[in-house]
């Protein structure tokens, strides 16, 4: 059933990375509970614009929960309190009339703030560039059915590959570690026969790059898993640790 609710928002406003930021209190009235969270912000922004104020800067693109561009910390939870849901797929029916909602950007040393809720997650691309791929050029690949892959392995690889690179795991972690993100890519590729030749090099290089880019260490807090909108399992972190140790002890790669 569609209803409308009124909300008080406390939104982080900050003009640039170097400017001083702070919370601003805004009112969102007559919000349909069928709206998504970002559509609620659209409505607030339209009003701010007409009132001659600057709208809240926030990122979004697909609004289907797959591109990973959106995200903010809502009442202390990256992407809000609804489990397994990106902010764009969080609907207002999960809020009550009169609620106060605190909205902040994802915060981590490795993520620079751009404006308001918009951040720069280029560091995640940097980690992938260190080795989150299989080195094959276009052309020359053997027939796709040459190497059978068990359904179980393919499914596990797919579970890990579902990561959308939104950075919620980093924002949720008290150490701002990117271990879940790194482990998802390392697992996805290490589980497949095609990824095996580079598995050792990949694990070492990606972890090293993660450290260089100022992400913290993993201390098994499990906040990442709890907040991940794609419910990536921390079993992947265990697999990353195994791959990392194997690479360190048993491979010639340094």
């Amino acid at each position: 059933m569609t209803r409308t609710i009124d909300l008080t928002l406390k939104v982080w406003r900050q003009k640039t990375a170097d400017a001083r930021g702070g919370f601003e209190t805004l009112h969102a009235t007559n919000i349909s509970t069928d709206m998504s969270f970002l559509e609620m912000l659209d409505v607030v922004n339209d009003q701010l614009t007409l009132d001659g104020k600057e709208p809240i800067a926030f990122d979004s693109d697909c609004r289907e929960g797959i591109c990973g561009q959106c995200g903010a910390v809502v009442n202390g939870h990256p992407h809000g309190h609804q489990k397994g849901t990106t902010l764009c797929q969080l609907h207002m029916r999960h809020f009550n009339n009169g609620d106060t909602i605190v909205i902040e950007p994802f915060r981590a040393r490795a993520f620079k703030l751009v404006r308001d809720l918009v951040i720069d997650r280029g560091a995640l691309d940097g980690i992938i560039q260190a080795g989150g791929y299989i080195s094959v050029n276009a052309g020359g690949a053997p027939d796709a059915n040459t190497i059978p892959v068990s359904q179980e392995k393919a499914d596990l690889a797919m579970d890990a590959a579902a990561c959308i690179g939104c950075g919620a795991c980093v924002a949720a972690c008290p150490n701002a570690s990117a271990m879940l993100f790194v482990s998802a890519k390392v697992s996805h590729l290490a589980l497949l026969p095609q990824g095996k030749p580079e598995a050792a090099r990949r694990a070492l290089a990606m972890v090293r790059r993660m450290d260089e880019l100022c992400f913290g260490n993993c201390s098994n807090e499990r906040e990442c898993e709890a907040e991940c909108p794609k419910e990536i399992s921390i079993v992947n972190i265990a697999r990353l640790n195994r791959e990392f140790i194997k690479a360190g002890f048993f491979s010639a790669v340094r």
Partner: protein
Amino acid sequence: MQLDAHIPAGPLAEKWDRHRFELKLVSPANKRKFTILVVGTGLAGGSAAASLAELGYNVKNFCIQDSPRRAHSIAAQGGINAAKNYPNDGDSIWRLFYDTIKGGDFRAREANVYRLAQVSNNIIDQCVAQGVPFAREYGGLLANRSFGGAQVSRTFYARGQTGQQLLLGAYGALSRQIAAGRVEMFTRREMLDLIVVDGQARGILVRNLITGEMERYAGDAVVLASGGYGNVFFLSTNAMNSNVTAAYRAYKRGALFANPCFTQIHPTCIPVHGTYQSKLTLMSESLRNDGRVWVPKKPGDKRPPNEIPESERDYFLERKYPSFGNLVPRDVASRATKEQCDMGKGVGETGRAVYLDFADAIRRDGRDVIEKKYGNLFEMYEKITAENPYETPMRIYPAIHYTMGGLWVDYNLMSTIAGLFVLGEANFSDHGANRLGASALMQGLADGYFIIPYTIGGYLADSSRQAVSTDHPAFAEAEKRVGEQVDKLLKIDGHRSVDDFHRHLGLIMWDYCGMSRNDEGLQKARGMVRELRAEFWENVRVPGRGEEFNQSLERAGRVADFLEFAELMIVDALTRRESCGGHFNEAFQTEEHEALRDDEHFAHVAAWEYTGDQSEPQRHIEPLVFENVHLAQRSYK
């Protein structure tokens, strides 16, 4: 202007091989002397940038998002076609070619489509080698499923998120080249102009979305892979940032725009539910493998779906098209759906929806099997509608999804501007008047991995260029032109927001240039668009400054272009005196309300030339020659 598609001579099956041999090559030592600017990082742009860099070219790659991994290809759900014939069900390159030509209602080039079918198999090989986790059978081999417009199972998939996995494959290849220093990546950049020097595309002007600064980039060729223009309708399944600006500004610099009225309405989307809505969500076509589409037989029947007995349901797609059933092509399914709703048989609050029912499939295969195939889609549906599709049928309605029209390109994917190549959804080339499901991913990757690496070499080796630096006056002119527009937008300080104009434009286009069109409505829409455009330039309110991160300003520039481009779509729709595929003019239909083509007068591509803001665009035609297929009334009965 005479449009020459440069289709190679010889039998259809030998054209591409012959052409690849005839194209001149650039030696490895010389490749590094060339700089190629690639705009977009989706399946077409990302794969092109990676492949060109692998060959040794210097590549500069630009995207609008904060990371190349977020391009809208990522949202493609159902799958990617290839003529592998793994299921042994009678598929072949020729059949994929034929299905695609027929699915496009005989409005695509034979040679391009045949090449697409030929390289489709290489794409699957390449993606598997990259580690794309496609679905597999118990024996470890790749699984296939069926998609609309085909009677074979040729669609490869990775759950309901195939686009994501293919894009991450291309993004991996791209990342590897970035690490190798062969691709320089520029994120959060929006292309605002094309630089043409001596008739050749030599650079682009982009706005740095973080600082607001204009940046100039010069190169030897420009590859545009900036996607489609579905957001001209405001509500579509496209991402919020998808826009026509890069393509439209290339049009204004002299590239011809082909078949802009060919837009695809996807039959299975979650229906519109409120005026505040920002976008529509697709429910993959793959669902029609197992879901059955129906409406109550009696108009105005408001009973809940499970209280309507079997005998009072009309499975209208199965009834009307017995041999393809629920898997008829998208244009056919969409129109049939609209027809039912127009008869008052629509369901849900608004009456603009039909049921997509999985009850039979769940009874037959069990909930586990259905969950495995479509789990993420069902979850997405439940998040948006708060209804559980395992228990109650989905409600779906057609929505704008894809645009077959785009910048005109020849067989080499080069536009009418020398050195400007256009790939993926941004070009017009392979889907005719209607795209079949699971063919967009195929085309994007074909263009990027397997076509542009050859054809761009041919161009670079075969033409001469003078050195052009970013100090060239053409850059200064473009910067001045774009800068003036930005200033103008910021100064208006009117009373309506950018989104408000965009939404208004979308309604006009959906009502009069959408699923079904007529001359009167199109004429009316043209007037309305002009009025809205005039009002926009007097009454829009764009807060903030140009030299900062300013999302309202970004959107204002895009909506300004949509307001012009919309008129081009309408003019194209008015001049195509037939119905075909996604373009349905009510004056041209069969007795059974199917699209009625006029092959004698309209078996051609309409390509529009920009002649100035105050003058009418000029229509050019490229005749389509069919030597290998027989033009027939499309039938899916």
